[in-house]
């Protein structure tokens, strides 16, 4: 039981399709990702980035095809996700961070300690006892990062985590993501922001109309994109 909980890689998608009603969002995606490099899912709005990420995280079930974590079709536990809009419960900051640990079955004293440690790491220890929902958007996103970090995941998904933040708050979030990655956690993040992708990516999955147009190391992708879609995306000329 425990061994599967702590095993995520390789995370494989085998001929995965996802459709919502008539609309086909993800079409025949097959790929395998491994830790601990930082993978950026890049693509225009509507390319299917968020849906692909939810399929990887196990929040959505493929219409056809299969997702496997560590060779197992059952959703792995050692993963966490941070959403574009942080979801805060109507309680204090530290209780929000401890909530994920509570669901993971961790005892009261340990979860207080781990939540406090995670808050220190995101620089919010001084507001641990403030109600979470009255914080600024940037602070709430850092609480969400602390909540994910406290779980000590092997893989962290981030869905446009800075899209609704001002530049200062966005940089702070990027710094925290860098630290989480430095601790050995795999990062998978969607963005449509090229600058951010360049700053954070070790490898890039470039998505176009629900298909993987390119999956390459960041240095290769940014220097010499092979697909015409990626070339035009980087020129800012969307087809």
């Amino acid at each position, binding site marked *: 039981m425990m061994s599967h909980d702590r095993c995520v890689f390789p995370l494989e998608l085998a001929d995965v399709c996802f459709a919502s009603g008539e609309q086909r969002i993800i079409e025949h995606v097959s790929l395998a990702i491994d830790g601990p490099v930082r993978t950026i899912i890049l693509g225009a709005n509507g390319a299917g980035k968020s849906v692909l990420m939810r399929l990887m995280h196990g929040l959505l079930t493929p219409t056809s095809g299969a997702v496997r974590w560590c060779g197992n079709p059952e959703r792995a536990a050692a993963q966490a*996700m941070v959403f574009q809009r942080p*979801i*805060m*419960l*109507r309680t204090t900051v530290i209780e929000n961070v401890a*909530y994920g640990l509570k*669901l993971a079955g961790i005892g009261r004293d340990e979860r207080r300690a781990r939540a406090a440690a995670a808050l220190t790491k995101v620089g919010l220890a001084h507001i641990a006892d403030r*109600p979470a*929902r009255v914080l600024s958007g940037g602070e709430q996103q850092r609480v969400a990062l602390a909540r994910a970090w406290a*779980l000590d995941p092997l893989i962290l998904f981030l869905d446009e985590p800075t899209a609704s933040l001002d530049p200062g708050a966005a940089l702070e979030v990027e710094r925290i993501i860098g630290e989480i990655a430095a601790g050995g956690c795999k990062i998978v993040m969607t963005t449509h922001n090229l600058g951010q992708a360049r700053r954070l990516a070790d490898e890039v999955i470039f998505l176009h109309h629900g298909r993987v147009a390119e999956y390459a190391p960041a240095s290769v992708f940014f220097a010499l994109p092979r697909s015409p879609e990626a070339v035009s995306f980087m020129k800012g000329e969307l087809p």
Partner: protein
Amino acid sequence: MGTLTDSLYAAIELIAAGEGKLAEIVMLSVRVSFSAVGIAALFGLPLGALLAVGRFPGRQVLLVVINGFMGLPSVVVGLVVYLLLSRAGPLGSLGILFTPTAMIVAQTILIMPLIAALARQIVADAWTEYHEQLRSLGADPWRASLTLLWDTRFSLFTALLAGFGRAAAEVGAVMIVGGNIDGVTRVMTTTIALETSKGDLPLALALGVVLIAIILAVNTIAHVTRRWAIRRYG
């Protein structure tokens, strides 16, 4: 016009004097309706949350029934509970017909659908906002329901007070199953009905004033709590 002002004057005198019989009736009303709200909440809140979060066979039917029963006629509830509790009825052996307990049972049945339906709406709205985050953290539907109930506690409090308002104001069900027995099962609404027909307008009016005051006070508490909660917790 003279009757109204005279009666009102007499009524205020009754209230000011804190007359024993009046206080007794008011206390019984409050006790019965608060108990009904408590029991209805115990079942209605989890039911509402489960309807909001869960997906199970029969859910649609249950939704229609609960929404339909929000406006259940109180006399019909009274009649059904009467039949169940009457000596020949299936629960006749309990011997609780014409007691405050029977009145609590009737009011509980009356307001449970209202509380469940309001709770379902409140929790469903929160679920729309939270479900991805909660599922990402590994919450099963049962756990998610509890979290959402706690998180929407201030809105749910308002739903409970709506239930209290309906319970305290209804007359049909308590009249039938309580029997309006002097000193035993006489509550504000049944006394108002009886005293008005007997022509004792001051007592009826005094009770009417108290009833409205209680409902206003309860709603003031709800309003103030909500405003405080929004400022405190967002």
